[in-house]
């Protein structure tokens, strides 16, 4: 497998995750989208010094990954490329913000360190939650849910087609690399003299295929609405799921459960 085929394989693997069966997979997409958005908003809204309050938010991903039967490890593996970037966001805060805000025994923790940790946690939590959504819901279902939330047709179609286009692009890269290497044995990568034509061909070919695929969708009655993604799901269960989680998020936001539990224990 060359690199492109490898990447494509990972996209397909995502689709397969989304096609699995679990109580979470069986919920309506709308409920999952709403819960995810609520989670992201609540997580982001924590103050950058409120590390202990934020900690409890880990409950949602940990629990739901369990129920969905998806190992959290999978998420970290798939997101291994962007994870360091997310963690790097607050890296320099300790340099700028040196005021001590917490003293544990002899340990003085500065605001900078605190905010760095909080930002990292926020980033990781948000990634975990977003990944959870796409690992339990197909892109079509997500688009359908977004349409139900009155997100404009143009945006949802764009989202879907971009997602599709990425696979087409990778597929074409894979095919072309294979064809290239079959006739250029022993070469590592693609010779610089062929880059121009390779890239040009790639764009033309993948555009062509993307057009053909879109035409094929239109030929079968697609006009920007995702009727076909409507699944039979348990409406009541989905509703309860959404309400419970959103309720829980609100409680987690305004009651510092971590400290509360700590208080009870000690």
């Amino acid at each position, binding site marked *: 497998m060359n690199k492109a085929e490898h990447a494509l394989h990972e996209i*397909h693997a995502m689709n397969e995750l989304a096609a699995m069966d679990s109580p979470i997979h069986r919920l309506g997409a709308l409920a999952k989208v709403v819960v995810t958005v609520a989670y992201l908003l609540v997580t982001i809204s924590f103050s950058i010094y409120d590390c202990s309050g934020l900690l409890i938010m880990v409950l949602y991903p940990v629990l739901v990954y369990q129920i969905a039967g998806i190992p959290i490890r999978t998420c970290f593996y798939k997101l291994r490329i962007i994870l360091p970037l997310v963690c790097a966001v607050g890296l320099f805060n300790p340099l700028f913000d040196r005021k001590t805000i917490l003293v544990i025994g002899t340990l003085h923790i500065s605001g900078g360190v605190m905010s760095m940790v909080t930002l990292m946690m926020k980033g990781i939590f948000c990634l975990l939650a977003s990944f959870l959504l796409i690992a339990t819901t197909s892109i079509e279902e997500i688009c359908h849910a977004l349409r139900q939330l009155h997100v404009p047709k143009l945006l949802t179609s764009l989202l879907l087609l971009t997602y*599709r286009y990425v696979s087409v692009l990778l597929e074409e890269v894979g095919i072309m690399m294979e064809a290239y290497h079959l006739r250029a044995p022993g070469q590592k990568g693609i010779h610089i003299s062929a880059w121009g034509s390779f890239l040009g061909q790639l764009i033309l070919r993948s555009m062509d295929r993307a057009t*053909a695929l879109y035409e094929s*969708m239109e*030929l079968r009655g*697609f006009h920007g609405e995702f*009727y*076909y993604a409507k699944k039979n799901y348990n409406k009541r269960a989905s509703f309860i799921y959404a309400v419970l989680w959103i309720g829980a998020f609100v409680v987690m936001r305004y009651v510092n459960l971590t400290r509360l539990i700590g208080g009870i224990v000690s």
Partner: protein
Amino acid sequence: MIEFKDVTFGYSKENEVLKGISFSVEEGERVGLIGSNGAGKSTLMKAMLGLISCEGEISIDGLRVEQKNIAAIRKTLGYVLQDSDNQMFMPTVLEDMIFGPLNYGMGRAEAEKLVDDTLERMSLLHLKNRQNYKMSGGEKRMAAIATILAMQPKGMLMDEPSTALDPRNRRRLIEILNELPVTKIIATHDLDLVLETCDRVLLLANGTIVADGKVEEILWNQELLEQYNLELPFCIAGIPERFKQ
């Protein structure tokens, strides 16, 4: 049901692919569309579905091919693409097959039943939950044909339906085509397939229809076929020269 009046089309100005084509196909007719590589068979089919815009007049089932009728026309005519990779865009065969029916307002349960029936008829039930990208060329071909059959169109356009099929699946395809009472246009180089499934043949060359007649008039006419870079169907030509003694 299908009517072409003086239809002209070129991908570029200098190079016309269709030059003033006129013909009509009645409801229920079974037509083989033949012609050498690059003759314009696929282009002609795209014109019927409004995928390209041509000069002249095309009407399908009484509707002119123009923007306001496109949706209705595409519902009437099912189109099996020459390249199945471009036909299948959903992750699994099942999802691909219910895509069309659901878009046209059928309920999910009904659509799934239809899929089961279609697959059963084609002896393809084992492909139902397969991932599209994990299928062989021929399996994809059969599945692509199944997605179109599941839409229950009034007319079928098929572009090279028999390529990549093994003899058994090709035979199954022929049986299915012969059981299907709808109007059919089959573009192909497999003249034996035409012989078994069609009554009428259109021969396309140099952007025009150079012959239009009964299967027996055209497919037995060696001189005509060879003039346009084709050959007699294998079953008529018989055993290759070097094995004749």
